[in-house]
């Protein structure tokens, strides 16, 4: 599982290339492969188990969950837990809140991010590098440290317990990464396309909106999904700022699941599954961009 294990297993392969006959070599390699595969499967089980347990606990009957003799495999499947989760008060309003907050924040964020990314992707101007470094630096600020002043500021502006307070913060929190990401897509679109549109009489912005913007669609979709996941997963600001039960976002609703006397784990797992499903689905769409995230440059040396 650790680095040393996999390395310790390697000498056989390497030594096999030396004096050993091809026959032995092949068997040796095969044996190593088998060991690696077995270790790999063990890691797979460890990494996948929490997800498996989430789904299984959501689907198994409650008497199995409240049992001192837990089994790794459910005897029967049921949707009761989902029913109980949905029947919790404020589930409907929580969905509504989450959709409003995340939707508005993402659309607004994409608009600002696209035009800013266009500026740093297509123009060279004084302060450009400074702006780009600002985009990176603010992503490193600890969110919990920002929480207190933001709370005070929203309080002064009357933004506590209002959607707009949360929306503004979500919008701007996703802005740096989205700008950075969209810029990456913009610089990969040849500027000649815009230039020829301008020769044909388009204005600078007209050329961007008519030529580059449509080509940017996949990149924008990816950036929007990232922003959406970030906003959807946020819980702390919403927990602190939104105080009315019917304004809770889904995450705050889920957090309050656990405070009632005794935890209904079946319903909690069902609710968690419901909240995770859209995230996982969207995540799969953009996973390949994620892997080339902040470190892509380093990989290329």
């Amino acid at each position, binding site marked *: 599982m650790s*680095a040393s294990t*996999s390395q310790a297993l390697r000498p056989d392969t*390497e030594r096999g290339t030396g004096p050993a006959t091809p026959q032995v070599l092949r068997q040796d390699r095969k044996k190593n492969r088998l060991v690696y595969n077995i*270790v*790999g*499967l063990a890691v*797979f089980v460890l*990494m*996948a188990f*929490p997800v498996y347990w989430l789904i299984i606990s959501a689907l198994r009957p409650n008497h199995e969950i409240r049992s001192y003799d*837990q089994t790794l495999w459910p005897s029967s499947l049921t949707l009761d837990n989902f029913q109980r989760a949905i029947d919790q008060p404020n589930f409907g309003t929580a969905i509504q809140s989450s959709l409003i907050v995340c939707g508005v924040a993402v659309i607004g964020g994409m608009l*600002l991010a696209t*035009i800013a990314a*266009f*500026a*740093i992707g297509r123009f*060279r101007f004084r302060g450009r590098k400074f702006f780009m470094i*600002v985009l990176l630096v*603010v992503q*490193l600020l*600890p969110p*919990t*440290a*920002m*929480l*207190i002043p933001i*709370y*005070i*500021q929203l*309080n002064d502006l009357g933004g506590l317990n209002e959607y707009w307070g949360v929306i*503004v913060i979500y919008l*701007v929190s996703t802005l*740096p990464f989205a700008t950075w990401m969209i810029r990456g*897509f913009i*610089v*990969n679109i040849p500027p000649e396309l815009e230039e020829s549109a*301008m020769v044909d009489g388009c*204005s*600078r912005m007209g050329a961007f909106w008519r030529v580059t913007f449509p080509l940017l669609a996949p990149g924008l979709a990816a950036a929007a999904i990232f922003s959406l996941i970030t906003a959807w*997963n946020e*819980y702390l600001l919403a927990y602190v700022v939104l105080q009315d039960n019917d304004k809770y976002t889904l*995450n705050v609703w889920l*957090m309050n699941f*656990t405070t009632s006397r005794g935890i209904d*784990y079946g319903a909690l797992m069902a609710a*968690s*599954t419901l*909240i*995770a499903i859209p*995230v996982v689905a969207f995540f*799969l769409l953009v*996973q390949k961009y*994620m*892997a080339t995230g*902040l*470190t892509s*440059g*380093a*990989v290329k*040396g």
Partner: protein
Amino acid sequence: MKAADPPVAVARVPERSGSQPPAGGQRKRRKAGALLPYLLIAPAFVAIAAVFVWPLIKTILMSFQDVGRRELWTGEAAPWVGFEQFTNILGDGEFWAVVWRTVIFMVACVVATMGIGLGISMLMQRMDTWVRLLLTAALVAAWSMPLLVATSIFRWFADSDYGVLNMVLTKYLGIDAQGHNWFLDPKQGFLIIGAVVVWGAIPFVAVTLYAALTQVPRELEEAAALDGAGVAGVFRYVTWPVIKPVFQMVATLSVLWDFNIFGQIFLIRGNKPEPEYSVLGIYSFEKAFESNSFSQGAAISLITVLLLSGVAVYYLRQLLKIGEVE
């Protein structure tokens, strides 16, 4: 995203649009062209200044004031108290205990994450494709789990009565853990919390390092082995130099993330962590929102930011060095 973006021709374009009109008009256009990028970044810049930079300044101001519940409700100006908040905090033994706890927990999590992540990535290079695909699927699934959901799962794992952890220990490993409460002893509690953190962080590390490992030329490794380099030698002199920049970057990010740990502890302790579970983030949050001493909380946040600024600068220098900011 791609750092190898070619240094594309950028600002030459605006001139061309104004080649026909008379000189006066041209100059005006050029001026407008020069202003355009500033107009374009203005909304984002203002937004970021308002939501990131101003709160940072506000944090600094608040740490020298005494903002409590009264100031919050009445809108009265808070009194200035100089360095009182800082002397109070730095003179408090509990604060130093919290700092220590944070540092130790961070180091443990980073070492575990990077070690296991590197191990998995090297393993992925050597296993059959079908196993790798399975493992990748599990990594992506773990990666995409929202923190809130991941924490709920691990909390359910560690439940003293019905948790699967106690069941497995009792039934399969012969340790009597029936009814064992993992959170009574913070050492054990932090083990569970560390598991959430590491489980959630491994996918990013493993996938990124795996991508880096695919850049290591196979022939070089083989040649080094033929020339008599041992496994450690091959790793030290061939593999490591190639993956080093990525490893450093990921490790630095992990340090930043794990030092700022908050949600996993906060959520696993049912939104009310006991004092033994305080790390800097929690400590500052509780001072502000439980004790209503917002200035104390702000001062602790400020200290946290200062402690981390060195790491952040190091990370930025790495990014600049590889030409990510071009």
